[in-house]
């Protein structure tokens, strides 16, 4: 009798490690995708596409619904995610802003480290363009011209913490050249400034530049991507063009509220892994000219640290006030 009991207990003890595998997370109600922009913004469009694609490819047993929490420079959405602690039915789309904004904004009450990393999805490449009738045929030409007239040449772009300026800072540091950065709040105004001849150069997403290049209004000097872009076979990468800077990508991915069970994270990792292999997703990446930057949560966590540390240094060099 005692031996049977011991055997039974031993058997139970042996089976227990297998228990987590058996208790798999399955969503039981619609999954909320939180985004920090209003309808039509970059993260919103991506989230809606994901919801649609997941439904189309039947990757989840429940619907996914986009919840717009715009405002506060992205902080409203971030705060909301952390408030949803423990809720396994909420995920959020993060962009590079989520990592950099808290560095310069004292008002930020949470950072990306307060959330659960899930997956990294896409990297957005960029191209360096000038107006078609500019005297710079290669990137070298521009850099040399900038060295001859320090601070005179101008680049249009977004805010001081945007990727455009990050690239500029890295390039200036590497080459010793110096040119001015003029911020415009909207993409339209930046392009208009370039096409109107009011600035000399800009860093722009290939998708935004595509048509202007095709119409012959813009010339591409270099591409900034991990792997050379299919749409620009003849354009040198920054490194090939003679400027060897670390690749600081524009990223988008998924995070989740803190304190959710490990198997929920595994579920989402898996979901997005399967999504990224579908033809629908591949076509989307191709149309948008994104790069596949898929990373699971462990790698993503490391990426967050690397990226944040690097951004902190770059922002300090750029003269922004870094608060954490």
């Amino acid at each position, binding site marked *: 009798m005692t031996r049977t009991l011991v055997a039974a207990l031993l058997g139970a003890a042996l089976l227990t490690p297998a228990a987590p595998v058996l208790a798999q997370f399955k969503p039981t109600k619609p999954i909320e995708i939180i985004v920090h922009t209003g309808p039509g913004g970059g993260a919103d469009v991506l989230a809606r596409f994901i919801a649609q694609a997941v439904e189309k490819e039947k990757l989840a047993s429940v619907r996914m619904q986009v919840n717009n929490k715009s405002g506060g*420079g992205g902080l409203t959405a971030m705060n909301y995610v952390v408030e949803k602690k423990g809720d396994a039915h909420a995920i959020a789309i993060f962009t590079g802003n989520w990592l950099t904004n808290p560095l310069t904004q004292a*008002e930020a*009450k949470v950072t990306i480290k307060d959330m659960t990393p899930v997956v990294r999805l896409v990297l957005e490449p960029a191209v360096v363009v000038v107006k078609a009738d500019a005297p710079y045929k290669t990137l070298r030409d521009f850099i040399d011209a900038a060295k001859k007239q320090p601070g005179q040449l101008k680049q249009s772009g977004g805010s001081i*913490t945007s990727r455009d300026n990050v690239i500029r800072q890295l390039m200036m540091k590497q080459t010793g050249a110096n040119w*001015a*950065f*003029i*911020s415009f709040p909207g*993409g339209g105004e930046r392009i208009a400034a370039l096409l109107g001849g009011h600035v000399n150069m800009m860093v722009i997403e290939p998708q935004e530049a595509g048509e202007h290049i095709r119409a012959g209004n813009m010339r591409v000097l270099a591409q900034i991507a991990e792997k050379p872009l299919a749409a620009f076979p003849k354009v040198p990468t920054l490194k090939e063009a003679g400027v060897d800077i670390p690749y600081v990508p524009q990223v988008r991915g998924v995070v989740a509220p803190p304190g959710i069970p490990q198997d929920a994270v595994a579920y989402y990792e898996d979901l997005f892994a399967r999504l990224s292999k579908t033809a629908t997703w591949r076509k989307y990446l191709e149309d948008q000219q994104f790069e596949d930057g898929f990373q699971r949560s462990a790698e993503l966590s490391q990426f967050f640290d690397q990226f944040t540390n690097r951004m902190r240094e770059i922002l300090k060099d750029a003269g922004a006030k870094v608060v954490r």
Partner: protein
Amino acid sequence: MDVLSGLIHGFSVAVAPANLMWCFVGCFLGTVVGIMPGLGPAATIAMLLPLTFKMDPTSAIIMLAGIYYGAKYGGSTTSILLNVPGESASVVTCLDGYQMARKGRAGAALGIAAIASFIAGTVGVIALMLISPPLAKVALSFSSPEYFALMALGLAMVVLLAGKSLVKALLAMLVGLWIASIGTDLFTATSRFTFGHSELLDGVDFVIVAIGVFAVGEVLGNMEQREAPQVLPVPKGLRNLLPTVEELKACRFAFLNGSIVGFLIGVLPGAGSTIASFISYGIEKAVSKHPEKFGTGVPEGVAAPEGANNSETGGALVPMLTLGIPGSSTTAILLAALILWGLKPGPLMIQDNPNLFWGLVASMYVGNVMLLVLNIPLIPLFAQILRLPVELLYPIIFGISMVGVYSVSGSLFDVWMLSAFGLLGYLMRKLDYPSAPLILGLVLGDSMERALRQSLMMSQGELGILVSRPISAVMLGLAVLILLLPLFRRANAWRVRALEENG
């Protein structure tokens, strides 16, 4: 494809039964969205995007464009009837439109708004069709110094909006400038005046201030008296529900003014319909034979801004369609829609997709007619809202204000700010501070500061850049002239008095 054959082809596309239906759907939705404060065409278009994937792109753009310019028609309704700006550009319509309603001419005001919108909208489409490419090139030569001059001109309009006390008008404008600078500075990522609240990092949304100061402030003022008579007399009879011939004649210049100013300003990426309405209103007042009557309910004061904000849509489509550059948040979403449907907006888009361009242009003519036909019969219906006893109307206005503000970003913080601005609006009324300059300062302050800093960055600190370029020099010169007007007037009055005294 030249203009005439393009247009004929376009009409054949636009009057296809399916496209007519989509045009109507868009116009109708746009009108509803425009009437509701806070809910804007940009958000509506974005939410409808998934539905458009299965549609033909031409039909889809016809519908979405209908929402865009339809909203401009609807925006005047609540501005005139309730002093609640339906969307940002309708703020200027409140100034004279609501006063006309107080005098019993609500129907006439609504009618003039609809007619001005129709005329200006049509002019905008014609201009879009005929002069887009050369105009787009001219628009590109506009950059920060010119924008600064334009904003300075707009702010100089405060002199024209001043009324009795210029000092108070300027003070109101300065407060508006201060509110505009709340938020994150674009150039240095520094937070200004956020008092530690992350909700203020993106600044104070214009809608909150406008609805608070205008609508809530007005209601609070009206609630001072318990036994107030019907504050807004209900127009009776068809004659009173529509504008009279005299009123329409008075608006002749305003129709023209609104159409041209709105379109030209719309073409500039980044300058919006609000500044178009203000400048058009200012010009109308400046050339009027009775400028002192503006603000008390003159029909031209409704026709000019309403026309401007409608033809601005035509203007905003110019850079979008000819260059692929979005000029405002709504055109940015339309652009995103075009990309999602597989089209490539840019300089070659019209060439590659003549069907879409001409079909869209033709549908805008059709749409404007539809909107006129839709809106005019609704006027008597809307005017009936004024029949409500005030004790019911005022809570409803509070309710609409709260909903309108909350719908902007779903934040209760915004609704609290509505309360604060409502109190501010009331205090301004009691102390005789005009509210239009506050709004003007708020709208322009941001853009003007940005344009100035961008200009100085472009010129490495040389202020001369602002006057060395012809266009900006001219506009700045005009601004200075307008600012000196009160001095001229006073000097003139003194001179006249001196002459009279000397016999």
